């Protein structure tokens, strides 16, 4: 009865779609696909914006005190004194640094991975006609959008945006007298609310709206990854919301929950009561921010798994291991947070506990990476653009993960803490890691969204240039960090350079050699190269909507999962008739396959199925 019901409704709705005006169809839409695209476009815009902030900072690091070419005068015109003569002041550098981190994590990657890909693909892959709560879905995008506007607007208020880093450590964040931090906190409350609503929606959709026959172990790994990531968002974000509300009270109502007694900032602070705990902020912040790392990486792994299975034309190796490893990853990620805080003077017993859990959490990560690597074995690999990005993800994430181990040990972390080594480590995880996976996903599902392929040649140009420049940017930072160069210095360490110190007659052991300082220059030009490498992608993304090669059918990659069983692009309501699922998600190259080398999940009769029942 359910099936006929859905079918009749699909017809009704086909007509109904035309009745909706522009606003209801594209702006206040409750269709999960439109909302997914809204998330995607907004997040891509923020990704580019965050990248430009970094580009300007790289100029300041490489050539401290020199006016920024091209955008310098524009910066001065918009922001005024902080960018006088087109030179980035240390205050501006600080706010760009804080906002680069905030924008990239909370406004670009998470909304892209969970908001855009999660919204568009999860209902399709579980065979649902929409998210469980379509209206709530629209509201969660609007919360995200307003949070983004508040964050963006904070650049233009007097005093500029928040300057205390994306971690907003108290008491620094409270001691800076400008209003940027207040905007940051308000924006975060909106963004957190958006994630909470969105993640609850995704979980309910996966639990409740799976198509008949789609059992838990038949879910594509991407859905599992979204499921775990949504749980992390749901449970890890609220403590930061609590902390954000408390910091907002400190900032606005004059409380001192994060201000200790006897604190002096340019003289003793007499107007606050004191008695608060700055470490409390760090605990609450990292209780979110460590699971957040896995929110960033799990959907990326999900995307990679889909693409690797499809392009090796064979089942994923160790599907169950992948699922259990991601569940283990999600659980463990809640009890490692204090490894960000080894230098806060915690006792050795606590440090040992968090060291141990940190080492344990690397096990599921390695299981996932190993499964994906072994999945390549013996496949007849199609080297198209999404696959190239996916293949690059594996070693890049590997580098990022392995370089994290020295940071997880408290002994070696004392040397590396807060240096460029840390920056290189987590950027290897997120930039050539997650962002490459997101690029792969965009190239892979683009034909489902538009009915046309993206240009393959320019895709490959985009990949190879990005791959080279990403490594040129982040590899030297390991050397800089090990040489002791600290992050968050607006002059790129020039004040600690051996040559500068020698000129004034001071000899300091451990000062930064010329070679280390010069690397700043190389990194700048590599970053410019990376910016240029994105031009083909941006043009390709929009040009292909109208001019790309048309897809030959609804399933251009010969994929097995449910999203390829819909019309292209899927209409409101997605499926023409409710799909029934008869098999697992990756039945490529079935034994003695009949003609084609894949069996879609909706295919009732199949050689693979009969052969597996014989076993």
């Amino acid at each position: 009865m359910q099936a006929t019901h859905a079918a009749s409704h699909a017809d009704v709705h086909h007509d109904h779609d035309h009745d909706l005006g522009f606003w209801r169809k594209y702006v206040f839409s409750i269709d999960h696909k439109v909302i997914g695209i809204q998330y995607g476009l907004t997040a891509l815009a923020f990704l580019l914006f965050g990248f430009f902030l970094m580009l300007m900072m790289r100029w300041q690091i490489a050539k401290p005190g020199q006016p920024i070419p091209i955008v310098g005068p524009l910066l001065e015109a918009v922001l005024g004194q902080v960018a006088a003569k087109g030179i980035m002041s240390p205050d501006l550098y600080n706010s760009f640094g804080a906002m680069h981190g905030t924008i990239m994590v909370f406004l670009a990657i998470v909304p892209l991975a969970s908001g855009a890909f999660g919204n568009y693909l999860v209902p399709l892959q579980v065979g649902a006609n929409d998210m469980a709560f379509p209206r709530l879905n629209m509201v969660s995008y609007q919360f995200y959008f307003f949070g983004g506007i508040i964050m963006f607007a904070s650049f233009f208020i007097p005093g500029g945006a928040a300057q205390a880093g994306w971690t907003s450590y108290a008491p620094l964040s409270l001691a800076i007298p400008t209003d940027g931090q207040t905007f940051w906190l308000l924006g975060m409350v909106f963004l957190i609310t958006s994630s909470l609503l969105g993640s609850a929606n995704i979980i309910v959709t996966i639990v409740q709206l799976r198509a008949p026959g789609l059992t838990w172990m038949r879910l594509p790994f991407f859905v599992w990854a979204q499921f775990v990531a949504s749980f992390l968002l749901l449970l890890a974000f609220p403590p930061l919301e609590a902390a954000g509300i408390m910091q907002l009270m400190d900032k606005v109502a004059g409380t001192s929950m994060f201000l200790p007694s006897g604190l002096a900032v340019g003289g003793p602070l007499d107007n606050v009561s004191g008695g608060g705990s700055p470490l409390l902020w760090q605990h609450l912040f990292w209780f979110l921010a460590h699971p957040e790392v896995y929110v960033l990486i799990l959907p990326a792994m999900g995307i990679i798994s889909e693409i690797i299975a499809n392009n090796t034309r064979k089942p994923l190796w160790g599907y169950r291991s992948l699922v259990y490893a991601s569940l283990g990853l999600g659980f463990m990620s809640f009890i490692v947070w204090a490894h960000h805080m080894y230098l806060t003077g915690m006792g050795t017993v606590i440090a040992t506990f968090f060291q141990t859990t940190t080492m344990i959490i690397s096990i599921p990560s390695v299981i996932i990476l190993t499964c994906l690597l072994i999945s390549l074995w013996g496949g007849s690999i199609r080297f198209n653009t999404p696959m190239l990005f996916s293949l690059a993800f594996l070693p890049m994430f590997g580098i990022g993960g392995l370089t994290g181990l020295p940071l997880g040990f408290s002994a070696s972390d004392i040397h590396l803490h807060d240096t460029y080594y840390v920056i290189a480590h987590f950027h290897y995880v997120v930039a050539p890691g997650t962002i490459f996976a997101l690029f792969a996903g965009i190239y892979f599902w683009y034909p489902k969204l538009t009915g046309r392929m993206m240009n393959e040649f320019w895709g490959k140009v985009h990949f190879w240039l990005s791959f080279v420049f990403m490594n040129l940017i982040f590899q030297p930072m390991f050397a800089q960090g090990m040489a002791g160069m600290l992050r968050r210095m607006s002059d790129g360490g020039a004040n600690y350079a051996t040559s500068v110190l020698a000129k004034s007659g001071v000899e300091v052991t451990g000062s930064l050699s010329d070679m280390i300082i010069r690397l700043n220059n190389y990194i700048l030009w590599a970053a410019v190269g990376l910016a240029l490498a994105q031009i083909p992608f941006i043009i390709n993304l929009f040009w292909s909507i109208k001019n790309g090669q048309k897809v030959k059918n609804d399933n251009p990659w010969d994929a097995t999962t449910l999203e390829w069983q819909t019309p292209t692009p899927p209409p409101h309501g997605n499926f023409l008739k409710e799909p029934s699922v008869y098999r697992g998600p990756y039945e490529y190259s079935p034994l003695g396959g009949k003609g084609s080398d894949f069996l879609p999940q909706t295919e009732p009769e199949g050689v693979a199925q009969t052969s597996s029942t014989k076993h």
Partner: protein
Amino acid sequence: MEIPYAVKPRPDTGVYNAKLGMWLFLASEVMLFGGLFSAYILLRVGAPEGTWTQGLLDIRLGTINTVILAFSAVTTLLAWAACKVRDFGKFKMWHGLTILLALVFLGIKSYEYRDKFSHFQIRKADGTYVDGHIAGSKYVDAAGQEREIHHGFRGKTFTEGEKEFTLASVTLNGYEAETLKEINQPERGHKHEHKDITVPAAEIKKIGNYGPAHNTFTAIYFTMTGLHALHILGGVLVIAYFWGPGSKMWHTEPDRFTNRIEVSGLFWHFVDLVWIFLFPILYLT
């Protein structure tokens, strides 16, 4: 287009969508208040000697509010049970009572807040304290003309029209103390004698009310109860909508309406449950 299992439970999971969604939301709420409760513990354990205020809040009012919320949980359950047996009149009565109880709760809470905002503490120049409710203050303008304000304090200076007044003295109805510990953690059974004490402006080093900025106890007290009161307010708005204009759905889709009452009842029970934890940690200890 219809979303499946919006009203009827899915057979293999046993719940309908909204119920699962609400439980997930409550899980995140547990983490939200969990973060605040752990903040409370850390702040209390780390508070400098004698600064953590105990016995500031009126236990009688707290107990009344606890009883009120307990009864509102009962009326919520009965309203849902009335929907289940298709007795619309009883539903109206029980949930009307819920709304009433919630409003009384908010009324008592705001009375308590007001009491704290008129409760002042003065640190005098000689290091001792005067603590009590404001009884009045005197100001003088530039010409030396005096002006008395009953039950008020408007900062060390305030302007009215053209004239600027500066503080002359503050009168509190309370007691004097040598240390903060005497005020914050008084000996058991010890009652401070209350009388009107006038402190001249010259002797006042710092004056402030028991608002959030007073100390870390009032900070966390106002943050936690404020957030809780916002939850009560949000909950009562939703329940009032279902009781008033939203109850039209009863006549068309009674099953869906019953589900709505159940889901809003889950939220309401959670808010009540938070209070069961807030009451002992803020009022009793």
